[in-house]
């Protein structure tokens, strides 16, 4: 097992992402964060809190993408997580999807479909804590906490204190 990001590094990464969001959206008017459960939801909440402290409050919500996955038939049926719309909705907003790890890109593809059925945002961007490469679809992140090249044999695990009791990003299964 190899520790790639510790608690402090995660916090700094999220702060940097927050500043980048402010910069690229020219202020945070009409920006809305949508976290992808499970850990993307917690990250979205953290980024929203940071944005509130450095700029102004930003609404956030959670977007469960289970019903739009393309790989449902490969495993027993998955339980659904919560979908919560931000108070002012997503119509005409700049939505920033927030997830923990970007890998094949299929989760984000499903998230785009799910989002499309909830409304029509003005634009959609993507913020991830870790980009580990190996895209299977033409999807890219706009904001990345850390780029970590990995082999497909390896497994990237994100732990967050809200649910796992600690903050870290670890890689297992390879030969680091």
């Amino acid at each position, binding site marked *: 097992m190899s520790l790639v990001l510790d608690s402090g590094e995660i916090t700094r990464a999220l702060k940097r992402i927050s500043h980048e969001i402010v910069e690229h959206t020219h202020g945070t008017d009409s920006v809305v964060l949508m976290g992808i459960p499970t850990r993307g939801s917690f990250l979205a909440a953290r980024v929203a809190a940071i944005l509130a402290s450095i700029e102004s409050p930003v609404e956030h919500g959670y977007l469960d993408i289970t019903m739009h996955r393309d790989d449902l038939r490969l495993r*027993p049926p998955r339980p659904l997580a*919560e979908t919560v719309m931000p108070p002012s909705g997503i119509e005409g907003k700049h939505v920033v999807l927030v997830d923990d790890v970007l890998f094949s890109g299929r989760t984000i593809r499903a998230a785009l479909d799910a989002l499309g059925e909830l409304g029509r945002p003005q634009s959609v961007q993507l913020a991830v804590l870790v980009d580990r490469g190996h895209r299977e679809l033409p999807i890219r992140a706009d904001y990345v906490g850390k780029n970590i090249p990995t082999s497909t044999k390896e497994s990237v695990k994100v732990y967050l204190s809200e649910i796992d009791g600690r903050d870290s990003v670890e890689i297992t299964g390879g030969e680091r």
Partner: protein
Amino acid sequence: MKHLLSINDLTASEAISILDTAAQLENLTSGTVKKLPTLRGRTVVNLFFEDSTRTRLSFDAAAKRLSADVTNFAAKGSSVSKGESLKDTAQTLQAMGADAIVIRHSASGAAKRLAESGWVSSSIINAGDGTHEHPTQALLDAFTIRKHFGPTRTDFVGLKVAIVGDIVHSRVARSNVLLLKKLGADVTVIAPPTLIPYGIENWGVAHSFNLDDELESFDVVMMLRVQLERMNEAYFPNGREYSRGYGLDEVRLGRLKQDAIVMHPGPMNRGLEISAASADSVRSVVLEQVSNGVLVRMAVLYQLLAGADQVSTGGLL
């Protein structure tokens, strides 16, 4: 889980997870767009040997909201109108490639026969077999109860439920008794002695011949439809006497607990087992039951069809 034939096919936690899924689906489909792509390319056949517009429409809507292809097959299969047999109909559907068959039939055990005979390889959902069971009705009733008494409950311990009416002929009663007990509720069935099933002592519920005794103690009063034809088989003398003894009229409605709800699986005989005022009162959740029905049936279809194919524990396949 390959089939849903009986509440006995579910553990308590499987039942709760269906209710949880239904709750999330409610969230997902509460906006303007009601459709999800999850079962795109899958075929669901509604095989209804008994007339039932409401249940069929409910399953129809549920399957379509998950983008499944739906075929409605209204078959005649009673011994009175000797149409195609259940076996022949089933094998036709198999040849057409149905992923799931929702079956309603007048013979108890028809769904189990379909699931275990080897005639079809589809998932079978029992939408009502004779006087045996109607599992999705019990699930939507439980979902409705849960919404009123605690939307995230994992059990019904402490809830007192009365089921009133023609228990012996009611598949809704059997499924509800099984599910409510499984979830820990305190169930009492109330009916004249002629409509209480043989061996009720083995059902794990209380029973009473008197609707008025403990009416104030119930959180849920579930009224069952009573068929007036039963009076010709001497179950009760006539509708008037039945109503007087077992009907939910305004006086009884007024005696109910503060937060008690009134349920009915429909269709209602207004004036017989339930007065019009009771049916339309604020305590009545009958319309919610109908809309919850679509959500619960979506959850069941999701559970049976969306994931990897699973081997059923009881079948021949």
